[in-house]
């Protein structure tokens, strides 16, 4: 009732401890997990539930339910929803990881049985599906030639397009080209194959060949290279261009000797990723190079094979020997692509340009 009471701290001032919301400790959550595991094991022992995958699913669902319930009681509704979402987010990451690990392990396991000298030094010439031995030398030669030719064609063209967009392009035309580069990245690979089939093979009358496959791969590589080169050229500081121009260097020489070298590591990364991408393409190669069992040294003479095509055609056989050749080719392909990806990442690290 006195006037001083307003200035005095009220007797019911909450302790600091009370201000903190109660929260579940890690120990409590771990305990909960143990309880859930025990309960699930009990369930699997008593009922007719069975199987490892089933156990994981049931245990996870039970744990999520239990955690949400306990958290709701102890921490309140909002915090329990937060926990539920966090668990779901972590779970989705693990779900996404599962097929990657499974594919890699299974391919390694199946592929190692034929990962031998013969596989890399022999072809499938006069080797039937049931015959042991035989190899993918012809397919490896084909892949290298087709991807190499596609790179030779798409890199200069792609770099020029990127240079046009970044260095010269103004207004609607540049915007249109940029837009269609993006649209082109979405063209299905089979459509690229059908295009080369109707244009080069049926239209102009050239036969199936490694070069035709390279044309189809070029259509697929081009937009990827343009996009990555464009990003990298944009990162080059304008100061560099201005300094060079101020010294009287013509614009084209500025681009070739200042801008491109500065952007080079990023551009190389983009090229390597594009190579890694088209190296695994099967459908366009099937429609344009068709495939063969022999080593064809020239990409301009008749049907050629490629590693992905080799996998596809060997896997179509019901024979185990052919299928294990397919797995070894798959393992080889994955290894090459992973190495390319890793190298691309290392090259980026050396770049001085950062986003």
């Amino acid at each position, binding site marked *: 009732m006195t006037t001083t009471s307003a200035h005095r701290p009220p007797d019911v001032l909450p302790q600091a401890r009370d201000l903190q919301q109660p929260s579940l400790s890690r120990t409590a959550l771990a305990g909960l997990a143990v309880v859930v595991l025990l309960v699930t094991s009990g369930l699997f022992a008593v009922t007719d539930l069975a199987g490892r995958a089933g156990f994981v699913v049931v245990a996870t669902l039970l744990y999520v339910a239990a955690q949400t319930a306990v958290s709701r009681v102890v921490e309140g509704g909002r*915090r329990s929803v937060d926990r539920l979402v966090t668990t779901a987010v972590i779970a989705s990451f693990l779900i996404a990881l599962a097929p990657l690990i499974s594919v890699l392990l299974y391919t390694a396991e199946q592929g190692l049985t034929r990962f031998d000298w013969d596989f890399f030094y022999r072809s499938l010439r006069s080797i039937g599906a049931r015959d042991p031995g035989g190899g993918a030398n012809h397919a490896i030669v084909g892949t290298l030639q087709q991807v190499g030719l596609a790179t030779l064609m798409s890199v200069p063209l792609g770099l020029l397009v990127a240079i046009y967009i970044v260095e010269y392009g103004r207004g609607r035309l540049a915007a249109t080209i940029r837009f269609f580069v993006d649209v082109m990245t979405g063209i*299905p690979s089979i459509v690229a194959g059908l295009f080369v089939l109707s244009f080069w093979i049926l239209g102009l009358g050239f036969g199936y060949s490694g070069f035709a496959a390279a044309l189809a791969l070029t259509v697929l590589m081009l937009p990827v290279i343009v996009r990555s080169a464009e990003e990298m050229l944009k990162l080059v500081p304008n100061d560099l261009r201005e300094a060079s121009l101020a010294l009287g260097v013509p614009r*084209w020489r500025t681009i070739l000797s200042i801008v491109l070298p500065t952007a080079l590591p990023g551009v190389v990364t983009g090229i390597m990723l594009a190579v890694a991408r088209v190296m695994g393409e*099967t459908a366009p190669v099937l429609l344009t190079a068709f495939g063969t069992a022999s080593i064809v040294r020239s990409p301009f003479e008749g049907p050629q094979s490629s590693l992905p095509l080799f996998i596809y055609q060997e896997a179509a056989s019901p024979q185990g020997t052919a299928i294990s050749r397919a797995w070894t080719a798959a393992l080889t392909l994955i290894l090459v692509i992973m190495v390319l990806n890793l190298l691309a990442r290392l090259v980026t690290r050396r770049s001085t340009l950062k986003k």
Partner: protein
Amino acid sequence: MSLGSLPPVTTDPASARPGAPDQPVPSLPRTAGRTAERRGDRAFRGLSLSAGLSLLGIILAIAVFLVVKAIPALQDNTASFLTDRVWDPNNAQPAFGIVALAFGTVLSSVLALLMALPVALGVALFISHVAPRRLAGVLGYVIDLLAAVPSVVYGLWGIFFLNDKVVVASAFLHEHAGWFPLFGGDDIFGRSIFLASIVLAIMILPIIASLSREVFLQVPVSQQEAALALGATRWEMIRTAVLPFGKPGVIGATMLGLGRALGETIAVAIVLSPAFVVSLDILSTNSGNTIAANVALGFAEASSTGRGALIASGLVLFAITLVVNVIARAIIYRRREFAGAL
């Protein structure tokens, strides 16, 4: 730092400095060197412009050549291309229609999207907002590796490893939820549309995840901190600040994933047991086929008309994916800040 975008280069030094003393610029070796410079510039500019135009030309040529090579087969077709559910183009009386293939293509892709989208969003949020900062880059790279595995390897894995497991799951679903329209049907022996769409989902997941992740990472920190300062939990912050900001980007990424699923060929060709039917029984063997897979499967033994028919179906696929991609890009382009990331 930088002076903004560069003005077009002016090679005339007098116009560059309007306020400069009114004396003639000392004549530099201008004639020979200067014109060579100009010529070099003009040539290089012309070269890069023609490269850009040739890219537009390629896209145009794809449409033109597919149409030209499809027309003869379409003229020989004894069935209606747009409405009949039959695919027999190698016959003396060629008969083929796109309906069953287009239906299978869209059905498998939409199912794949339904499976991939929630997981991909979870992965994107995990890497952008939940995982420890130092690990986030590496974990993102690991998920990107999913996109590096060639589709033919997914096909191989799908048919030799996944198929058996999907048969078990399919039988379970059919037994316990057979009343649901998608889970009806008989002949649950694998190689179904369900298996194909699971494989497709795995293949488009990294695309949607990595694009969504980039978008989520661009949400202004100030907005996220404001939400947290108001007492929001992490989920409430994500719901109120991150998701609304990222929505157009996520929609664009989803459309790109859909485009990829629609055009995926070899994995589907390997895992699917093809049938020219319009059926919702996704668990059944012989539950459908897709345009792209049909091209790969039918190409080797196609007659001249048969090839034309496959090209015609490819034209339909090209048109569908073009529309999907243009819509996706248009959505992304409306939000300029995403355009760089995607």
